């Protein structure tokens, strides 16, 4: 099907009608840039999250959980692979350009990866609260996303994020039923991660947010944030933990938890790479990138040829 849109109005009418844009469609440049920036930040966040997860493989208690952390690390790096490819196909930056920008501190990734995970309790809080926050926002994007390749890849990512969240909940339950020391450790992690996880959704959406207008996001930030609050506040309380929000109150009229006013300064600092752990994280990721240059060289065209890994030797396996 050939299609093109003479004006932005035509294009927006197409989007409002539930139209899906494909990579080779002649989309308006502003839309291309907005979709690209959104997917690039998502890809960066998966990669940065995967690298932190990797740090915990040797420190994870017990073989079963260690293997699950290994699987989660592979998932996050895999999500990065999927998303960098979808982003690269928009023709704004190549995969390598995106990676180099990330490691040079020139591009953004989610606020939660600008903090340091200090204890095992932090890892549990991340898998439970942060993966759930990511899942809620990804589900909302998936539901109505106008960019076809992103929507299709999100289906796979969402299924795997569900696995991460269930892992987190399973670990959280074990800790909740554990010793006083374990419970205290998790409470301290909750104190550290509650607000960053909540801020992952961002401040209330602007009325002229193009991400909403072009159906890249389908729900406003404050709606998603509220969904997370209503789900996790009662759940954490039911396990006997205290929500670190002194102004929080139960709104009996609306039947909802209200966490009180939110300080957005920490979020702004992370977006400017000025979070508590931003520089170490970026440096670590950049070091990792340069340390693995030999792997990329070995897997490049020349390297592969030198190693005799030729083409065409592998059968397709038939149909």
């Amino acid at each position, binding site marked *: 099907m050939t299609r093109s849109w003479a004006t932005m109005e035509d294009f927006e009418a197409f989007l409002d009608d539930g139209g899906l844009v494909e990579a080779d469609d002649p989309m308006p440049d502003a839309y291309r840039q907005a979709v690209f920036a959104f997917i690039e930040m998502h890809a960066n966040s998966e990669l940065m999250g995967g690298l932190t997860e990797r740090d915990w493989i040797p420190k994870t208690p017990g073989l079963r959980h260690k293997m699950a952390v290994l699987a989660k690390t592979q998932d996050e790096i895999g999500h990065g692979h999927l998303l960098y*490819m*979808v982003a690269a196909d928009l023709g704004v930056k190549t995969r390598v350009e995106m990676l180099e920008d990330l490691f040079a501190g020139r591009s953004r990734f989610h606020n939660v990866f600008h903090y340091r995970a200090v204890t095992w309790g932090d890892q549990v809080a991340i898998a439970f609260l942060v993966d759930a926050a990511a899942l809620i926002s990804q589900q909302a994007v998936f539901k109505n996303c106008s960019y076809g390749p992103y929507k299709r890849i999100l289906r*796979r990512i969402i299924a795997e994020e569900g696995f991460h969240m269930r892992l987190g909940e399973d670990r959280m339950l074990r800790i909740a039923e554990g010793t006083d020391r374990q419970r205290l450790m998790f409470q301290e992690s909750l104190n550290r991660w509650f607000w960053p996880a909540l801020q992952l959704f961002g401040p209330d959406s602007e009325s002229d947010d193009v991400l909403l207008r072009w159906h890249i996001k389908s729900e406003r930030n404050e709606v998603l944030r509220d969904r997370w609050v209503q789900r996790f506040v009662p759940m954490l309380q039911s396990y006997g933990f205290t929500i670190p929000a002194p102004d929080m109150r139960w709104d009996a009229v609306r039947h909802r938890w209200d966490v009180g006013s939110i300080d957005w300064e920490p979020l702004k600092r992370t977006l400017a790479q000025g979070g508590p752990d931003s520089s170490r994280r970026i440096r670590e990721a950049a070091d990792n990138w340069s340390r693995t240059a030999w792997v990329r060289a070995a*897997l*490049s065209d020349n*390297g592969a040829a030198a190693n005799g890994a*030729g*083409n065409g030797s592998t059968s397709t396996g038939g149909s």
Partner: protein
Amino acid sequence: MRVYEVFVKKDGRNEFRHVGALEAATDELALVLAREVYLRRAEGDRLWVVRRDHVVAAPGDFVDPNADKPHRHHDGAAVAARRMAARQSPS
């Protein structure tokens, strides 16, 4: 590096389905990366990777004429209406 399109098939139930793309230096490495990125939980048991520059894609409007071929369909509505009428007026 080359771009490959990835196709996956599950059992005898479905056709090969396009699941996404990846970049790799050789066919062999493309298969390895496809397995690790798209099939970590055995989402399929058959896997094809096809170099993007080997895909023959129809030009944009190539299929358009077939969107207007009503004589290739029959909705059965007229027959159903006559049957219904026959049932309602016993002979």
